[in-house]
């Protein structure tokens, strides 16, 4: 793993970063309208001037203020109500901070720190200057990755995580009469008529089997492509638990702490739009053709990554869109209930959790939730290469039987 001369490396890095930015402060203009207070606009202007005036440490100071203030705005009110302008301001702060960090004195911690800042901007901010944070992140990542090893991994090997554990994992018995039907490469018309319109789940076989991710993805590959990137991780057995929390860490840290080294807690990289953050991974997956049967545009489809150890659980819940759940690594046990059975599933009262059932599917409290016992359901074990169609509002419970990576496509 040959490493280049650090001095030459950092000079090249700084040049590559500057090339991504506008050449003057006029180009850095942020169009945020009147939703952002004038005092903040003054700071943005000031920061841009300092940046192009090569006053790096003062620019860093102002960027911090911009970040701290916009962060407070991002935390005021429900996420969906947060004005996009504030998220753009936050991204702006991240951009300046990241570049300023890299232009400082030579410091091995600077580039990973700058990459983390970019990832924060991608996670919480909104696109600015033609999605510049993605480009900056790519440049930083390339600088961190050893040059001699191209992003090609050997044929997928089994993960080195403890295998012995799977001996003790309860593999549910899927009764034939309750099995989700399976179909091999149905035509668009057949799928629409038999499953989409009537809202019936089905496992699609022979559709995703040849996606590049099926052969390429392994712990090693993911580590190589994305190990230094910061992602949100859910810690705790399930999101309805009191002990549950969300935190941020790099993918390497996640694999180390929650997958390979005898994890003490359950950690799950769940419901994260990883493929927007790391476009290189997006090339390994394909949007299922059946999505064209929906009303929305392709760019309105939300693609989420679900990556975690054996044992992660998503409690029984429903989503407001159609879902294709594609399995890439490992197997998942899934139990499904029709929206017509909602009453028997005892959804939570609170606004926050009204789409989640109170019942623990594999260990239900039938005294408290008597109707649950009689509610009809379907179940399946989803294996690599298969796609489960979960109709809109269909209740679903998911447990990972192995180290697992799934990709979900939410569409309308």
């Amino acid at each position, binding site marked *: 793993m040959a490493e280049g001369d650090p001095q030459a490396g950092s000079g090249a890095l700084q040049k590559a970063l500057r090339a991504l930015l506008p050449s003057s402060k006029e180009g850095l203009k942020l169009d945020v309208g009147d939703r952002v207070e*004038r*005092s903040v606009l*003054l700071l943005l202007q000031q920061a841009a001037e300092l940046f192009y005036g090569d006053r790096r440490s003062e620019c860093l100071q*102002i960027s911090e*203020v911009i970040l701290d203030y916009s962060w*407070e705005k991002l935390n*005021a009110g429900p996420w969906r109500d947060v004005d996009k302008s504030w998220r753009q301001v936050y991204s702006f702060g991240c951009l300046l901070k990241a570049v300023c960090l890299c232009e400082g004195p030579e410091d091995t911690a600077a580039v990973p720190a700058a990459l983390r800042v970019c990832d924060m901007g991608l996670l919480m901010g909104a696109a600015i200057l033609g999605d510049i944070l993605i480009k900056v992140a790519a440049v930083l990542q390339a600088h961190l990755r050893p040059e001699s090893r191209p992003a090609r991994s050997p044929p997928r090997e089994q993960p080195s995580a403890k295998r012995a554990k799977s001996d003790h994992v309860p593999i549910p018995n899927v009764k034939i009469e309750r099995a989700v039907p399976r179909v091999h490469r149905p035509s668009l018309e057949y799928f629409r008529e038999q499953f989409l319109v009537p809202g019936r789940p089905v496992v699609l076989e022979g559709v995703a089997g040849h996606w590049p991710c099926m052969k390429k993805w392994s712990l090693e590959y993911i580590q190589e492509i994305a190990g230094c990137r910061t992602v949100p991780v859910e810690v705790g057995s399930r999101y309805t638990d009191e002990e549950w*929390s969300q935190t941020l860490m790099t993918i390497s840290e996640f694999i180390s702490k929650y997958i390979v080294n005898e994890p003490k807690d359950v950690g799950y990289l769940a419901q994260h739009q990883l493929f927007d953050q790391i476009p290189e991974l997006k090339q390994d997956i394909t949007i299922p053709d059946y999505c064209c049967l929906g009303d929305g545009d392709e760019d309105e489809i939300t693609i989420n990554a679900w990556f975690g150890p054996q044992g992660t659980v998503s409690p029984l819940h429903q989503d407001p869109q159609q879902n294709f759940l594609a399995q890439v690594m490992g197997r998942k046990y899934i139990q499904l209930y029709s929206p017509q059975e909602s009453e028997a599933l005892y959804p939570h009262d*609170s*606004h926050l959790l009204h789409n989640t059932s109170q019942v623990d599917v594999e260990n239900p409290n039938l005294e408290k939730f008597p109707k649950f016992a009689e509610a009809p359901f379907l179940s399946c074990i989803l294996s690599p290469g298969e796609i489960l169609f979960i109709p809109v509002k269909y209740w679903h419970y998911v447990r990972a039987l192995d180290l697992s990576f799934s990709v979900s496509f939410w569409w309308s």
Partner: protein
Amino acid sequence: MAEEHPGAWFGFGFCGFGQALGSGRGPCVHSPEPLRVPGAETCHVSASWSYTAVVTRGDRAELSGSASGAIGDCADAWASEAALVVLRVGAAHGAELQVWSPERAPRGEPLWTHAVVREPARRQGGAQAGVLPLLPGACAYVSPRPPFYRPLAPELRARRLELGAEHAVLLGEAGQVFSWGSGRHGQLGHGTLEAELEPRPLEALQGLPMAEVAAGGWHSVCVSETGDIYVWGWNESGQLALPTRSLAEEGKTVQGEATVLTLDGPDLKGAAGGEDGGPAPFISIQSFPALLDLPLGSEAIKASCGSRHTAVVTRMGELYTWGWGKYGQLGHKDTASLDHPCRVQYFVEKQLRVKAVTCGPWNTYVYAV
């Protein structure tokens, strides 16, 4: 506020817009510095993020920071980023509430005005300060966003009202505490994360008359008549003086020393504290009031909250601060955040007795004698 020996105002924390705070060097001040305000003696300070309004004994509101200038005939002022609210008095105005756009004040015209009933026995100038956003007469309060005039039910008999980023806390005449607004960070204190549209009394504090209430960005504090402090809401920077994960990860939490007690009775519990006296777990959100002990059993008399920090004045004239400290707003000569109360040594060293405290979002103003 008039004393035998008139005291002085001090400030510390964020001053990146040049607001009246310290010497104007750099974006923040880490240790208390005397406040320099033109004209007559300062009675009351109201600080927003980018500017500060100081009401002087001459009934002037002096603005500094992103807003500048002065407004005459002001008995009270309340500063926020969206609006500057002033109570104008005197022959020219009768008594009138005015809402100004901070960037234009005091030039031009206010955005909105509203006549108020004059207080029957008007005391010395400045005595009406510090009541806003509650209106004189307590029948309504002023919101920084339209509709500016928000009526309050008369049976609440509001004595004091403070607004957080998304919630409101009200103290009634008999010492009961009410809250409403968004509850997503537990800042309402009713034990849930649900919002409340109307003022709802805090059941957990029933029977405990409060003397003071304060609202921070996403947390709330109240002080009882007997000097006890109760805290609830978001603790992400330790602003509730409960152990917080973020500081533990930096190696800065004093987990074992968290002085949170449990009260007898089913309704009120100290939030943290393992049953066996072991180290307390991290608290991110405290959705019902927790009793907080100051070191040495000091009694609190006043409290104020910034965006993510808290300041308390004790009967003995000391100032304790905790929470987010990145901009020096805790006054401990550094930028560390703290999840336990720490005394501001400056006032002890200068042998000053602290009498009052008002926090802006990222700074702190103190009156000491």
